[in-house]
Protein backbone atom coordinates (compact mmCIF):
# COMPACT_ATOMS: atom_id res chain seq x y z
CA UNK A 1 0.00 0.00 0.00
CA UNK A 2 2.95 2.30 0.72
CA UNK A 3 3.72 2.47 -2.98
CA UNK A 4 0.37 4.22 -3.48
CA UNK A 5 -0.02 6.30 -0.31
CA UNK A 6 3.54 7.70 -0.43
CA UNK A 7 3.16 8.85 -4.04
CA UNK A 8 -0.47 9.88 -4.20
CA UNK A 9 0.43 13.01 -6.20
CA UNK A 10 1.99 11.01 -9.01
CA UNK A 11 -0.74 8.34 -9.09
CA UNK A 12 -3.34 11.10 -9.32
CA UNK A 13 -1.51 12.74 -12.21
CA UNK A 14 -1.08 9.40 -13.96
CA UNK A 15 -4.75 8.52 -13.59
CA UNK A 16 -5.63 11.96 -14.94
CA UNK A 17 -3.29 11.34 -17.89
CA UNK A 18 -4.95 8.00 -18.62
CA UNK A 19 -8.41 9.56 -18.43
CA UNK A 20 -7.36 12.43 -20.71
CA UNK A 21 -6.03 9.94 -23.25
CA UNK A 22 -9.15 7.79 -22.93
CA UNK A 23 -11.74 10.54 -23.28
CA UNK A 24 -9.71 12.65 -25.70
CA UNK A 25 -8.87 9.68 -27.90
CA UNK A 26 -12.44 8.43 -27.61
CA UNK A 27 -13.87 11.76 -28.74
CA UNK A 28 -11.53 11.99 -31.74
CA UNK A 29 -12.28 8.37 -32.60
CA UNK A 30 -16.04 8.88 -32.37
CA UNK A 31 -16.02 11.95 -34.63
CA UNK A 32 -13.54 10.60 -37.17
CA UNK A 33 -15.02 7.10 -36.99
CA UNK A 34 -18.55 8.33 -37.62
CA UNK A 35 -17.37 10.26 -40.67
CA UNK A 36 -15.44 7.26 -42.02
CA UNK A 37 -18.33 4.91 -41.17
CA UNK A 38 -20.76 7.18 -43.04
CA UNK A 39 -18.35 7.20 -46.00
CA UNK A 40 -18.21 3.40 -45.93
CA UNK A 41 -21.98 3.09 -46.36
CA UNK A 42 -22.47 6.13 -48.61
CA UNK A 43 -23.86 5.85 -52.14
CA UNK A 44 -20.83 7.75 -53.50
CA UNK A 45 -18.22 5.29 -54.84
CA UNK A 46 -15.27 7.66 -54.26
CA UNK A 47 -16.23 8.26 -50.63
CA UNK A 48 -16.66 4.53 -50.13
CA UNK A 49 -13.24 3.83 -51.64
CA UNK A 50 -11.52 6.43 -49.45
CA UNK A 51 -13.25 5.07 -46.34
CA UNK A 52 -12.28 1.51 -47.21
CA UNK A 53 -8.68 2.52 -47.88
CA UNK A 54 -8.44 4.30 -44.53
CA UNK A 55 -9.91 1.39 -42.58
CA UNK A 56 -7.82 -1.27 -44.33
CA UNK A 57 -4.59 0.67 -43.94
CA UNK A 58 -4.93 1.71 -40.31
CA UNK A 59 -6.29 -1.67 -39.30
CA UNK A 60 -3.09 -3.19 -40.62
CA UNK A 61 -0.88 -0.66 -38.87
CA UNK A 62 0.40 -1.46 -35.38
CA UNK A 63 -0.74 1.10 -32.84
CA UNK A 64 2.89 1.53 -31.79
CA UNK A 65 3.72 2.55 -35.36
CA UNK A 66 0.90 5.12 -35.36
CA UNK A 67 2.27 6.53 -32.10
CA UNK A 68 5.77 6.43 -33.55
CA UNK A 69 4.65 8.49 -36.54
CA UNK A 70 2.83 11.04 -34.42
CA UNK A 71 5.59 11.32 -31.81
CA UNK A 72 8.74 11.27 -33.95
CA UNK A 73 7.95 11.87 -37.64
CA UNK A 74 5.13 14.41 -37.50
CA UNK A 75 6.63 17.00 -35.10
CA UNK A 76 9.66 17.86 -37.29
CA UNK A 77 7.35 17.91 -40.31
CA UNK A 78 5.00 20.53 -38.93
CA UNK A 79 7.75 22.09 -36.83
CA UNK A 80 6.20 21.60 -33.41
CA UNK A 81 8.16 20.36 -30.41
CA UNK A 82 6.56 17.19 -29.04
CA UNK A 83 6.78 17.87 -25.32
CA UNK A 84 4.35 18.60 -22.49
CA UNK A 85 0.83 19.36 -23.69
CA UNK A 86 1.84 18.92 -27.34
CA UNK A 87 2.99 15.37 -26.61
CA UNK A 88 -0.37 14.67 -24.98
CA UNK A 89 -2.10 16.12 -28.06
CA UNK A 90 -0.11 13.90 -30.41
CA UNK A 91 -0.87 10.85 -28.25
CA UNK A 92 -4.60 11.65 -28.29
CA UNK A 93 -4.46 12.08 -32.05
CA UNK A 94 -2.66 8.75 -32.47
CA UNK A 95 -5.20 6.91 -30.32
CA UNK A 96 -8.07 8.66 -32.10
CA UNK A 97 -6.84 7.90 -35.61
CA UNK A 98 -6.25 4.25 -34.70
CA UNK A 99 -9.50 3.68 -32.80
CA UNK A 100 -11.57 5.50 -35.44
CA UNK A 101 -11.25 2.50 -37.77
CA UNK A 102 -12.87 0.25 -35.18
CA UNK A 103 -15.60 2.82 -34.52
CA UNK A 104 -16.24 3.09 -38.26
CA UNK A 105 -16.47 -0.67 -38.71
CA UNK A 106 -18.76 -1.03 -35.71
CA UNK A 107 -21.12 1.62 -37.09
CA UNK A 108 -21.05 0.06 -40.53
CA UNK A 109 -21.82 -3.44 -39.30
CA UNK A 110 -24.50 -2.00 -37.00
CA UNK A 111 -26.24 -0.41 -39.97
CA UNK A 112 -25.86 -3.65 -41.92
CA UNK A 113 -27.69 -5.59 -39.22
CA UNK A 114 -30.88 -3.64 -40.03
CA UNK A 115 -32.83 -5.78 -42.51
CA UNK A 116 -33.29 -4.16 -45.93
CA UNK A 117 -37.04 -4.70 -45.63
CA UNK A 118 -37.20 -2.20 -42.79
CA UNK A 119 -35.96 0.66 -44.95
CA UNK A 120 -37.99 -0.53 -47.94
CA UNK A 121 -41.15 -0.63 -45.86
CA UNK A 122 -40.38 2.83 -44.50
CA UNK A 123 -39.95 4.20 -48.00
CA UNK A 124 -43.06 2.40 -49.18
CA UNK A 125 -45.20 4.29 -46.69
CA UNK A 126 -43.75 7.51 -48.03
CA UNK A 127 -41.16 8.53 -45.44
CA UNK A 128 -38.40 10.84 -46.67
CA UNK A 129 -34.72 9.89 -46.43
CA UNK A 130 -34.36 11.87 -43.20
CA UNK A 131 -37.36 10.15 -41.66
CA UNK A 132 -36.24 6.70 -42.80
CA UNK A 133 -32.90 7.31 -41.09
CA UNK A 134 -34.08 8.99 -37.91
CA UNK A 135 -37.22 6.95 -37.26
CA UNK A 136 -36.43 3.48 -38.57
CA UNK A 137 -32.82 2.67 -39.43
CA UNK A 138 -30.66 4.55 -36.94
CA UNK A 139 -32.64 3.66 -33.79
CA UNK A 140 -32.25 -0.03 -34.62
CA UNK A 141 -28.65 0.32 -35.73
CA UNK A 142 -27.79 2.32 -32.60
CA UNK A 143 -28.99 -0.46 -30.33
CA UNK A 144 -26.95 -3.14 -32.01
CA UNK A 145 -23.93 -0.83 -32.10
CA UNK A 146 -23.77 -0.12 -28.36
CA UNK A 147 -22.29 -3.42 -27.07
CA UNK A 148 -19.50 -3.73 -29.67
CA UNK A 149 -18.82 -0.01 -29.28
CA UNK A 150 -18.18 -0.59 -25.59
CA UNK A 151 -15.66 -3.27 -26.60
CA UNK A 152 -13.93 -0.69 -28.76
CA UNK A 153 -13.68 1.63 -25.77
CA UNK A 154 -12.38 -1.12 -23.48
CA UNK A 155 -9.66 -1.78 -26.06
CA UNK A 156 -8.99 1.98 -26.21
CA UNK A 157 -8.59 2.13 -22.43
CA UNK A 158 -5.97 -0.59 -22.54
CA UNK A 159 -4.28 1.01 -25.53
CA UNK A 160 -3.73 4.27 -23.64
CA UNK A 161 -0.75 2.55 -21.95
CA UNK A 162 1.17 2.62 -25.24
CA UNK A 163 1.57 6.38 -24.67
CA UNK A 164 3.99 5.41 -21.89
CA UNK A 165 6.52 4.54 -24.58
CA UNK A 166 6.28 8.08 -25.96
CA UNK A 167 6.85 10.09 -22.76
CA UNK A 168 3.25 10.92 -21.95
CA UNK A 169 2.45 10.45 -18.25
CA UNK A 170 -0.28 7.87 -17.69
CA UNK A 171 -0.79 4.75 -15.58
CA UNK A 172 1.41 2.77 -17.96
CA UNK A 173 4.41 5.01 -17.24
CA UNK A 174 4.17 4.75 -13.45
CA UNK A 175 6.90 2.12 -13.31
CA UNK A 176 9.34 4.51 -14.94
CA UNK A 177 8.48 7.44 -12.67
CA UNK A 178 8.28 5.54 -9.40
CA UNK A 179 11.48 3.57 -10.00
CA UNK A 180 13.20 6.98 -10.05
CA UNK A 181 11.77 7.55 -6.58
CA UNK A 182 13.28 4.23 -5.56
CA UNK A 183 10.03 2.27 -5.29
CA UNK A 184 9.77 -1.48 -5.87
CA UNK A 185 9.05 -1.79 -9.62
CA UNK A 186 7.36 -5.15 -9.31
CA UNK A 187 4.91 -3.78 -6.76
CA UNK A 188 4.17 -0.71 -8.88
CA UNK A 189 3.41 -2.83 -11.95
CA UNK A 190 1.18 -5.17 -9.94
CA UNK A 191 -0.80 -2.15 -8.72
CA UNK A 192 -1.13 -0.83 -12.26
CA UNK A 193 -2.48 -4.23 -13.29
CA UNK A 194 -4.98 -4.21 -10.43
CA UNK A 195 -6.21 -0.75 -11.48
CA UNK A 196 -6.63 -1.84 -15.09
CA UNK A 197 -8.48 -5.03 -14.16
CA UNK A 198 -10.81 -2.91 -12.00
CA UNK A 199 -11.40 -0.34 -14.76
CA UNK A 200 -12.02 -3.01 -17.39
CA UNK A 201 -14.43 -4.81 -15.06
CA UNK A 202 -16.27 -1.53 -14.53
CA UNK A 203 -16.63 -0.97 -18.28
CA UNK A 204 -17.65 -4.61 -18.89
CA UNK A 205 -20.30 -4.26 -16.21
CA UNK A 206 -21.62 -1.11 -17.87
CA UNK A 207 -21.58 -2.96 -21.18
CA UNK A 208 -23.65 -5.85 -19.84
CA UNK A 209 -26.18 -3.46 -18.34
CA UNK A 210 -26.50 -1.49 -21.55
CA UNK A 211 -26.79 -4.68 -23.53
CA UNK A 212 -29.70 -5.85 -21.39
CA UNK A 213 -31.48 -2.54 -21.76
CA UNK A 214 -30.82 -2.08 -25.43
CA UNK A 215 -31.24 -5.45 -27.12
CA UNK A 216 -33.30 -5.29 -30.28
CA UNK A 217 -36.30 -7.55 -30.13
CA UNK A 218 -36.51 -9.32 -33.46
Amino acid at each position, binding site marked *: MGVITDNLDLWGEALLGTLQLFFGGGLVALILGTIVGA*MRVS*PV*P*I*ARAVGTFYV*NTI*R*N*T*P*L*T*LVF*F*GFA*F*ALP*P*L*IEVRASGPAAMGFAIAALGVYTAT*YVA*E*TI*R*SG*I*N*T*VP*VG*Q*AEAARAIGLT*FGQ*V*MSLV*VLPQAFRSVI*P*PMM*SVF*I*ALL*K*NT*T*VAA*GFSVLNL*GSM*RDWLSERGE*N*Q*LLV*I*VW*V*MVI*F*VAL*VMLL*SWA*QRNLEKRWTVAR
Partner: protein
Amino acid sequence: MSGSVLYDVPGPRAIIRNRIIGILTIVVVLGIVAFFVWRLFATGQFAASKWEAFSYTRIWEQIAIGLWNTVSAFALAAVGALAVGFVLAIGRLSDHAWVRWPVTAVVEFLRAVPVLVMMFLLYYGLPVIGIRMPSYWVVVIALVAYNGSVLAEVIRAGVEALPRGQREAGYAIGLRKSGVMRLILLPQAVRAMMPVILSQLVVTLKDTALGFIITYEELLFFAKRLGAAATLDSPIIQSTIVVGAIYIGLCLLLSGAARLVEKRMQKSPRVRAAQEAIAPRLHEGTDTEVIAAQELAHLDDVAKADGR
Protein backbone atom coordinates in the same frame (compact mmCIF):
# COMPACT_ATOMS: atom_id res chain seq x y z
CA MET B 1 -22.84 -2.53 -51.67
CA SER B 2 -25.93 -3.11 -53.76
CA GLY B 3 -28.98 -3.55 -51.62
CA SER B 4 -27.78 -1.15 -48.94
CA VAL B 5 -30.43 -0.47 -46.35
CA LEU B 6 -30.04 3.21 -46.56
CA TYR B 7 -30.58 4.45 -50.07
CA ASP B 8 -33.14 4.19 -52.77
CA VAL B 9 -32.07 4.14 -56.41
CA PRO B 10 -30.90 7.74 -56.98
CA GLY B 11 -32.99 10.04 -59.11
CA PRO B 12 -31.61 12.93 -61.19
CA ARG B 13 -31.22 15.28 -58.20
CA ALA B 14 -29.59 12.63 -56.04
CA ILE B 15 -27.17 11.76 -58.86
CA ILE B 16 -26.02 15.38 -59.05
CA ARG B 17 -25.73 15.59 -55.28
CA ASN B 18 -23.70 12.38 -55.17
CA ARG B 19 -21.35 13.75 -57.84
CA ILE B 20 -20.81 16.89 -55.80
CA ILE B 21 -20.05 14.83 -52.68
CA GLY B 22 -17.66 12.73 -54.73
CA ILE B 23 -15.80 15.81 -55.98
CA LEU B 24 -15.67 17.24 -52.46
CA THR B 25 -14.16 13.99 -51.15
CA ILE B 26 -11.48 14.11 -53.83
CA VAL B 27 -10.70 17.75 -53.01
CA VAL B 28 -10.37 17.03 -49.28
CA VAL B 29 -8.15 13.98 -49.83
CA LEU B 30 -5.96 15.84 -52.33
CA GLY B 31 -5.75 18.73 -49.87
CA ILE B 32 -4.45 16.45 -47.11
CA VAL B 33 -1.93 14.82 -49.45
CA ALA B 34 -0.84 18.23 -50.77
CA PHE B 35 -0.35 19.50 -47.23
CA PHE B 36 2.03 16.66 -46.39
CA VAL B 37 3.94 16.96 -49.66
CA TRP B 38 4.28 20.71 -49.06
CA ARG B 39 5.55 20.15 -45.52
CA LEU B 40 7.99 17.50 -46.78
CA PHE B 41 9.31 20.05 -49.29
CA ALA B 42 9.32 22.98 -46.88
CA THR B 43 11.36 21.06 -44.30
CA GLY B 44 13.74 19.74 -46.95
CA GLN B 45 12.86 16.07 -46.57
CA PHE B 46 13.48 15.33 -50.24
CA ALA B 47 17.16 16.30 -49.98
CA ALA B 48 19.47 13.54 -51.20
CA SER B 49 21.38 13.54 -47.90
CA LYS B 50 18.19 12.62 -46.04
CA TRP B 51 17.73 9.51 -48.15
CA GLU B 52 21.38 8.56 -48.51
CA ALA B 53 21.10 6.10 -45.63
CA PHE B 54 18.96 3.81 -47.75
CA SER B 55 21.67 3.44 -50.39
CA TYR B 56 23.91 1.50 -47.98
CA THR B 57 23.79 -2.28 -47.88
CA ARG B 58 24.62 -2.20 -44.17
CA ILE B 59 21.47 -0.25 -43.39
CA TRP B 60 19.35 -2.75 -45.30
CA GLU B 61 21.10 -5.57 -43.46
CA GLN B 62 20.04 -3.95 -40.21
CA ILE B 63 16.50 -3.56 -41.48
CA ALA B 64 16.53 -7.23 -42.41
CA ILE B 65 17.65 -8.11 -38.86
CA GLY B 66 14.83 -5.96 -37.45
CA LEU B 67 12.36 -7.64 -39.79
CA TRP B 68 13.63 -11.07 -38.75
CA ASN B 69 13.26 -10.16 -35.07
CA THR B 70 9.69 -9.02 -35.68
CA VAL B 71 8.75 -12.10 -37.67
CA SER B 72 10.42 -14.61 -35.38
CA ALA B 73 8.73 -13.17 -32.29
CA PHE B 74 5.40 -13.23 -34.12
CA ALA B 75 5.82 -16.80 -35.37
CA LEU B 76 6.56 -18.26 -31.95
CA ALA B 77 3.88 -16.12 -30.28
CA ALA B 78 1.26 -17.22 -32.83
CA VAL B 79 1.99 -20.91 -32.33
CA GLY B 80 2.12 -20.49 -28.56
CA ALA B 81 -1.11 -18.47 -28.47
CA LEU B 82 -2.96 -21.14 -30.46
CA ALA B 83 -1.71 -23.89 -28.13
CA VAL B 84 -2.50 -21.90 -24.97
CA GLY B 85 -5.85 -20.90 -26.47
CA PHE B 86 -6.91 -24.52 -26.88
CA VAL B 87 -5.75 -25.50 -23.40
CA LEU B 88 -7.52 -22.58 -21.73
CA ALA B 89 -10.67 -23.05 -23.79
CA ILE B 90 -10.90 -26.70 -22.75
CA GLY B 91 -10.25 -25.65 -19.16
CA ARG B 92 -13.05 -23.10 -19.30
CA LEU B 93 -15.41 -25.69 -20.71
CA SER B 94 -14.53 -28.26 -18.07
CA ASP B 95 -17.31 -29.94 -16.11
CA HIS B 96 -15.24 -29.68 -12.95
CA ALA B 97 -15.70 -26.42 -11.11
CA TRP B 98 -12.22 -26.65 -9.60
CA VAL B 99 -10.76 -26.52 -13.10
CA ARG B 100 -13.26 -24.13 -14.64
CA TRP B 101 -13.11 -21.37 -12.04
CA PRO B 102 -9.34 -20.86 -11.82
CA VAL B 103 -9.01 -21.02 -15.61
CA THR B 104 -11.84 -18.51 -16.02
CA ALA B 105 -10.14 -16.18 -13.55
CA VAL B 106 -6.81 -16.46 -15.37
CA VAL B 107 -8.41 -15.83 -18.77
CA GLU B 108 -10.36 -12.81 -17.56
CA PHE B 109 -7.27 -11.42 -15.85
CA LEU B 110 -5.03 -11.86 -18.89
CA ARG B 111 -7.59 -10.23 -21.16
CA ALA B 112 -8.01 -7.23 -18.89
CA VAL B 113 -4.32 -6.40 -18.48
CA PRO B 114 -2.83 -4.29 -21.31
CA VAL B 115 -0.17 -6.25 -23.22
CA LEU B 116 2.37 -3.49 -22.64
CA VAL B 117 1.89 -3.62 -18.87
CA MET B 118 2.36 -7.40 -19.05
CA MET B 119 5.64 -6.80 -20.91
CA PHE B 120 6.69 -4.31 -18.21
CA LEU B 121 5.94 -6.93 -15.57
CA LEU B 122 8.11 -9.52 -17.29
CA TYR B 123 10.90 -7.14 -18.28
CA TYR B 124 11.16 -4.75 -15.32
CA GLY B 125 9.07 -6.37 -12.59
CA LEU B 126 10.33 -9.94 -12.44
CA PRO B 127 14.05 -9.04 -12.16
CA VAL B 128 13.15 -7.67 -8.69
CA ILE B 129 12.62 -11.27 -7.56
CA GLY B 130 15.59 -12.51 -9.55
CA ILE B 131 13.92 -13.71 -12.76
CA ARG B 132 15.55 -12.21 -15.83
CA MET B 133 14.86 -12.99 -19.44
CA PRO B 134 15.89 -11.54 -22.80
CA SER B 135 13.46 -9.08 -24.42
CA TYR B 136 12.64 -11.64 -27.13
CA TRP B 137 11.08 -13.94 -24.55
CA VAL B 138 9.33 -11.06 -22.84
CA VAL B 139 7.61 -10.14 -26.11
CA VAL B 140 6.73 -13.76 -26.91
CA ILE B 141 5.39 -14.63 -23.46
CA ALA B 142 3.32 -11.44 -23.14
CA LEU B 143 1.81 -11.97 -26.59
CA VAL B 144 1.10 -15.65 -25.90
CA ALA B 145 -0.56 -14.79 -22.58
CA TYR B 146 -2.86 -12.14 -24.05
CA ASN B 147 -3.67 -13.64 -27.43
CA GLY B 148 -3.91 -17.13 -25.95
CA SER B 149 -6.59 -15.99 -23.54
CA VAL B 150 -8.45 -14.13 -26.28
CA LEU B 151 -8.33 -17.18 -28.56
CA ALA B 152 -9.55 -19.30 -25.65
CA GLU B 153 -12.63 -17.09 -25.41
CA VAL B 154 -13.18 -17.28 -29.16
CA ILE B 155 -12.94 -21.08 -29.20
CA ARG B 156 -15.13 -21.39 -26.11
CA ALA B 157 -17.76 -19.13 -27.64
CA GLY B 158 -17.65 -21.26 -30.77
CA VAL B 159 -18.17 -24.48 -28.83
CA GLU B 160 -20.95 -23.05 -26.69
CA ALA B 161 -22.79 -21.70 -29.70
CA LEU B 162 -23.00 -25.13 -31.32
CA PRO B 163 -26.45 -26.73 -31.17
CA ARG B 164 -26.82 -29.07 -28.17
CA GLY B 165 -27.75 -31.89 -30.50
CA GLN B 166 -24.13 -32.14 -31.65
CA ARG B 167 -22.87 -33.01 -28.18
CA GLU B 168 -25.83 -35.25 -27.43
CA ALA B 169 -25.41 -37.17 -30.69
CA GLY B 170 -21.76 -37.66 -29.81
CA TYR B 171 -22.63 -39.18 -26.45
CA ALA B 172 -25.38 -41.24 -28.06
CA ILE B 173 -22.94 -43.02 -30.35
CA GLY B 174 -20.88 -43.89 -27.30
CA LEU B 175 -18.09 -41.29 -27.32
CA ARG B 176 -16.53 -40.17 -24.06
CA LYS B 177 -16.25 -36.55 -22.98
CA SER B 178 -12.80 -36.21 -24.51
CA GLY B 179 -13.98 -37.80 -27.74
CA VAL B 180 -16.97 -35.50 -28.03
CA MET B 181 -14.74 -32.50 -27.49
CA ARG B 182 -11.95 -33.60 -29.80
CA LEU B 183 -13.94 -35.16 -32.63
CA ILE B 184 -17.20 -33.23 -32.63
CA LEU B 185 -17.13 -29.89 -30.85
CA LEU B 186 -13.65 -28.44 -31.39
CA PRO B 187 -13.41 -29.13 -35.15
CA GLN B 188 -16.74 -27.40 -35.80
CA ALA B 189 -15.99 -24.53 -33.44
CA VAL B 190 -12.59 -23.93 -35.02
CA ARG B 191 -14.01 -24.04 -38.54
CA ALA B 192 -16.76 -21.61 -37.69
CA MET B 193 -14.43 -19.26 -35.85
CA MET B 194 -11.60 -19.41 -38.38
CA PRO B 195 -12.07 -15.80 -39.60
CA VAL B 196 -11.81 -14.53 -36.03
CA ILE B 197 -8.85 -16.75 -35.19
CA LEU B 198 -6.98 -15.55 -38.27
CA SER B 199 -7.68 -11.90 -37.58
CA GLN B 200 -6.40 -12.42 -34.04
CA LEU B 201 -3.12 -13.58 -35.56
CA VAL B 202 -2.93 -10.24 -37.39
CA VAL B 203 -3.45 -8.54 -34.01
CA THR B 204 -0.55 -10.62 -32.67
CA LEU B 205 1.70 -9.46 -35.50
CA LYS B 206 0.71 -5.84 -34.89
CA ASP B 207 1.39 -6.14 -31.17
CA THR B 208 4.97 -7.34 -31.69
CA ALA B 209 5.63 -3.63 -32.31
CA LEU B 210 5.05 -3.06 -28.58
CA GLY B 211 8.43 -4.73 -28.12
CA PHE B 212 9.91 -1.42 -29.29
CA ILE B 213 8.92 0.14 -25.97
CA ILE B 214 10.82 -2.45 -23.94
CA THR B 215 13.85 -2.11 -26.28
CA TYR B 216 13.31 -5.33 -28.21
CA GLU B 217 15.31 -4.76 -31.39
CA GLU B 218 12.50 -5.08 -33.91
CA LEU B 219 11.79 -2.83 -36.90
CA LEU B 220 10.69 0.30 -35.01
CA PHE B 221 13.65 0.06 -32.67
CA PHE B 222 15.93 0.20 -35.66
CA ALA B 223 13.94 3.03 -37.27
CA LYS B 224 14.43 5.12 -34.11
CA ARG B 225 18.15 4.45 -34.02
CA LEU B 226 18.58 5.22 -37.70
CA GLY B 227 16.52 8.40 -37.29
CA ALA B 228 18.89 9.60 -34.59
CA ALA B 229 22.04 8.98 -36.63
CA ALA B 230 23.50 12.48 -37.08
CA THR B 231 26.13 11.27 -39.56
CA LEU B 232 23.28 10.27 -41.90
CA ASP B 233 21.48 13.62 -41.46
CA SER B 234 19.02 12.21 -38.86
CA PRO B 235 16.50 10.78 -41.34
CA ILE B 236 13.73 10.09 -38.79
CA ILE B 237 10.88 10.91 -41.19
CA GLN B 238 12.45 8.82 -43.94
CA SER B 239 13.10 5.85 -41.68
CA THR B 240 9.53 6.04 -40.34
CA ILE B 241 8.21 5.98 -43.90
CA VAL B 242 10.39 3.04 -44.95
CA VAL B 243 9.93 0.94 -41.83
CA GLY B 244 6.24 1.87 -41.62
CA ALA B 245 5.73 0.67 -45.18
CA ILE B 246 7.45 -2.61 -44.35
CA TYR B 247 5.32 -3.11 -41.24
CA ILE B 248 2.05 -2.29 -42.96
CA GLY B 249 3.04 -4.43 -45.94
CA LEU B 250 3.72 -7.34 -43.61
CA CYS B 251 0.34 -6.99 -41.89
CA LEU B 252 -1.49 -6.58 -45.20
CA LEU B 253 0.24 -9.72 -46.45
CA LEU B 254 -0.95 -11.69 -43.43
CA SER B 255 -4.47 -10.22 -43.68
CA GLY B 256 -4.54 -11.12 -47.36
CA ALA B 257 -3.46 -14.68 -46.59
CA ALA B 258 -6.14 -14.87 -43.91
CA ARG B 259 -8.79 -13.70 -46.35
CA LEU B 260 -7.60 -16.25 -48.91
CA VAL B 261 -7.90 -19.08 -46.38
CA GLU B 262 -11.30 -17.79 -45.36
CA LYS B 263 -12.51 -17.74 -48.95
CA ARG B 264 -11.20 -21.25 -49.57
CA MET B 265 -12.93 -22.46 -46.46
CA GLN B 266 -16.17 -20.74 -47.38
CA LYS B 267 -16.41 -23.10 -50.33
CA SER B 268 -16.42 -26.14 -48.07
CA PRO B 269 -19.96 -27.19 -47.14
CA ARG B 270 -18.74 -28.35 -43.71
CA VAL B 271 -17.48 -24.89 -42.86
CA ARG B 272 -20.63 -23.21 -44.02
CA ALA B 273 -22.71 -25.62 -42.00
CA ALA B 274 -20.67 -24.93 -38.89
CA GLN B 275 -20.81 -21.18 -39.41
CA GLU B 276 -24.53 -21.21 -39.96
CA ALA B 277 -24.99 -23.37 -36.87
CA ILE B 278 -23.09 -20.91 -34.77
CA ALA B 279 -23.71 -17.37 -36.01
CA PRO B 280 -23.38 -16.18 -32.42
CA ARG B 281 -23.30 -12.62 -31.32
CA LEU B 282 -20.00 -11.94 -29.67
CA HIS B 283 -19.35 -8.71 -27.98
CA GLU B 284 -17.17 -8.53 -24.96
CA GLY B 285 -14.01 -6.81 -24.05
CA THR B 286 -11.43 -6.94 -26.86
CA ASP B 287 -10.51 -5.93 -30.35
CA THR B 288 -11.05 -9.46 -31.48
CA GLU B 289 -14.59 -9.67 -30.39
CA VAL B 290 -15.30 -6.46 -32.20
CA ILE B 291 -13.71 -7.95 -35.25
CA ALA B 292 -15.64 -11.13 -34.56
CA ALA B 293 -18.91 -9.26 -34.55
CA GLN B 294 -17.92 -7.57 -37.77
CA GLU B 295 -16.73 -10.73 -39.48
CA LEU B 296 -19.93 -12.48 -38.54
CA ALA B 297 -21.93 -9.51 -39.79
CA HIS B 298 -19.89 -9.86 -42.96
CA LEU B 299 -20.84 -13.54 -43.14
CA ASP B 300 -24.43 -12.48 -42.76
CA ASP B 301 -23.95 -10.17 -45.73
CA VAL B 302 -22.54 -13.04 -47.75
CA ALA B 303 -25.43 -15.28 -46.79
CA LYS B 304 -27.94 -12.57 -47.67
CA ALA B 305 -26.28 -11.93 -51.02
CA ASP B 306 -26.39 -15.65 -51.79
CA GLY B 307 -30.03 -15.90 -50.87
CA ARG B 308 -30.92 -13.18 -53.32
